[in-house]
């Protein structure tokens, strides 16, 4: 009876228009399953057995990617309720907790971000320990390093959005560092030496690295908007693009590394 229903679904025009192959039970259909699916075909059809052993990759790259997707989805949901304006930001966060059914989306998003940081570090440690950055994978390691920075910047920019004490003062600590950039921040070494003839300073409090980051002299309205746009649009787009490059390069560099 149930088998009959399943079979008739599998034979229906709708099903067979989506899945162009039979149940992946033999070699041919298993190959088809990977090749005819746009997501699965990120994978090669066949891999070396040791390359997919959990104790080799620790699955950390994969988990980082999964967490990135989980962050994207939960982040989009949060965007429905959050307005990046000083008047509303904090109360929107409170409202999320108070008024939403099963209001754990903010928790998922926050803890997922922490988890992603840890997983990307562990992924890097695994790639380092297996020497997988060595030729021919040098460039993919570099792509990875940029992804590492982007992951931390994603988390950092998101930290400001709740607009509570934790948020603005953490970002203030960060912006103090930007202010100290050599030759580009007001408190940085050498900045005062950069002068046009006549003693006109080149870098001013309105054009230094900190101002660039915050859009103002302190963490305020402009910084919130800047961090929001960076957090929700610019950095995710950059990271998604680089993740695509990263995956493509894994394939082009001959798949997961292994002894020659």
């Amino acid at each position, binding site marked *: 009876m149930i088998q009959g229903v399943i079979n008739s679904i599998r034979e229906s025009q709708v099903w067979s228009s989506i899945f162009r192959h039979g149940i992946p039970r033999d070699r041919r259909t*298993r*190959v088809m399953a*990977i090749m005819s699916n746009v997501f*699965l075909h990120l994978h090669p059809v*066949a891999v*070396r*057995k*040791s390359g*997919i052993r959990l104790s*080799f990759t*620790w*699955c950390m790259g994969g988990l980082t990617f*999964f967490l990135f997707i*989980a962050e994207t989805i939960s982040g989009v949901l949060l965007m429905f309720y959050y307005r990046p304006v000083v008047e509303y930001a*904090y109360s929107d*966060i409170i409202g999320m*907790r108070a008024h939403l059914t099963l209001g*754990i989306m903010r*928790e*998922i998003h926050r*803890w*997922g971000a*922490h*988890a992603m940081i*840890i997983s990307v*570090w*562990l992924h890097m440690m*695994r790639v380092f*320990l*297996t*020497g*997988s*950055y*060595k*030729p021919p994978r*040098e460039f993919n*390691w*570099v792509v990875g*390093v940029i992804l590492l920075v982007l992951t931390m910047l994603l*988390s950092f920019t998101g930290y400001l959005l709740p*607009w509570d*004490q934790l948020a*603005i003062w*953490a970002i203030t*600590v*960060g912006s103090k*560092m*930007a202010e*100290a950039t*050599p030759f580009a921040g007001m*408190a*940085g*070494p050498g900045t*005062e030496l950069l002068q046009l003839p006549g003693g006109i300073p080149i870098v001013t409090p309105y054009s230094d690295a900190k101002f660039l980051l915050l859009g103002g002299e302190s*963490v*305020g309205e402009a910084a919130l908007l800047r961090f929001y746009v960076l957090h929700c649009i610019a950095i995710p787009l950059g990271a998604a693009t680089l993740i695509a490059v990263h995956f493509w390069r894994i394939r082009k560099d001959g798949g997961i*590394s*292994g*002894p*020659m």
Partner: protein
Amino acid sequence: MISLLPISSLLLAAGEVNITALDKFKDFVNRWSVPQYSLPLFCIIMFAAFIWYRKWTKPIVFWPLMLGFTVVYFAFIPLDESYASILKKPDNVPITMMIFLTLYFLWLGLRQAAINDENMEIGKPLIEEDREDKVLCWPDLVYTELLAMVLCTVVLIVWSVLLKAPLESPANPAGPPNPSKAPWYFLGLQELLVYFDPWMAGVVLPGLIILGLAAMPYIDTNPKGNGYYTFKERRFAILTWMFGYLILWCVLIVFGTFLRGPNWNFFGPFQVWDPYRVDPLTNINISDVWYVVLLGGKLPDNLLVREWPGLLFTFFWLCVLPVLMTKIGFFGRLRAQMGFSRYYLMAVLFVIMMLVPVKMVGRWTFNLKYIIAMPEINFNL
């Protein structure tokens, strides 16, 4: 956690019998946790772990060690309020996860390295060497991935249900909390602010970390150890990297999150964060040491004359030391193997990394404040 409670209450019971013994132990840990003792201790532990990596990575040694560590780590939550308040802070939970996951995966990697290194010595194949044909991604890989995703989702949901995301009072630009902390993953850098000015700790050093990481595959020309776990074939690379990652990154993060309290003063794990504690600042610059302490005079007015000892040291450290190192057999061989530009890129990055512990030791031994102190142009090193 729950299963640990009986053990804690046992300890608690023992503590009631002999409360002073427990207090003495806490006192001992507090005193030893200050960076000048604990950082060298962590270094010793790390290097010992790499020297004897074939011994302790045996499951029969590792798991009891890990279990013991876990018990001690959690047992003190009910035994000490300040310790509990640190560990239970929602934003500190990731640190605990980081500690345990890093230890576990370090073991997992080194365990396989130990097996591989032994296998290579007796001519057996590596763990990673396949005798079979390739396997298909469906089902061997996609099912693992599915399982990993499901597990990860479950962990994330449970974590989110159990622990509320923190939300403090609304932002108040006029009232900084004390201490003001950056997000936890940057606290290693904030911890460096104790020893360096912001331009170093917040800009130059992180910039060099990124640059150094990106340059690594082009610097490390050792063809061995590509695609399999090994320690024996890449000792220098692994030790250097791990020193940077485990000690200078992870341990400093633990300090910054767990042990830095009001005014960024250092507090042991069982010490109450007293906001009124004042730690005297008696730090002195190299130029003070030279002109005032040693020569018994006063500081000259000219900037360059005043700071020449520090400038000389810095020049020596960054420019002469990399050359001098080639006289040591090991670095000499590296220089010959790697060629000019690779070697000097590596050596300069290496000595800059080592400047961090060197300055720390300077601080701990003679209260070194700045090697070069030119506050006139915001240039303090």
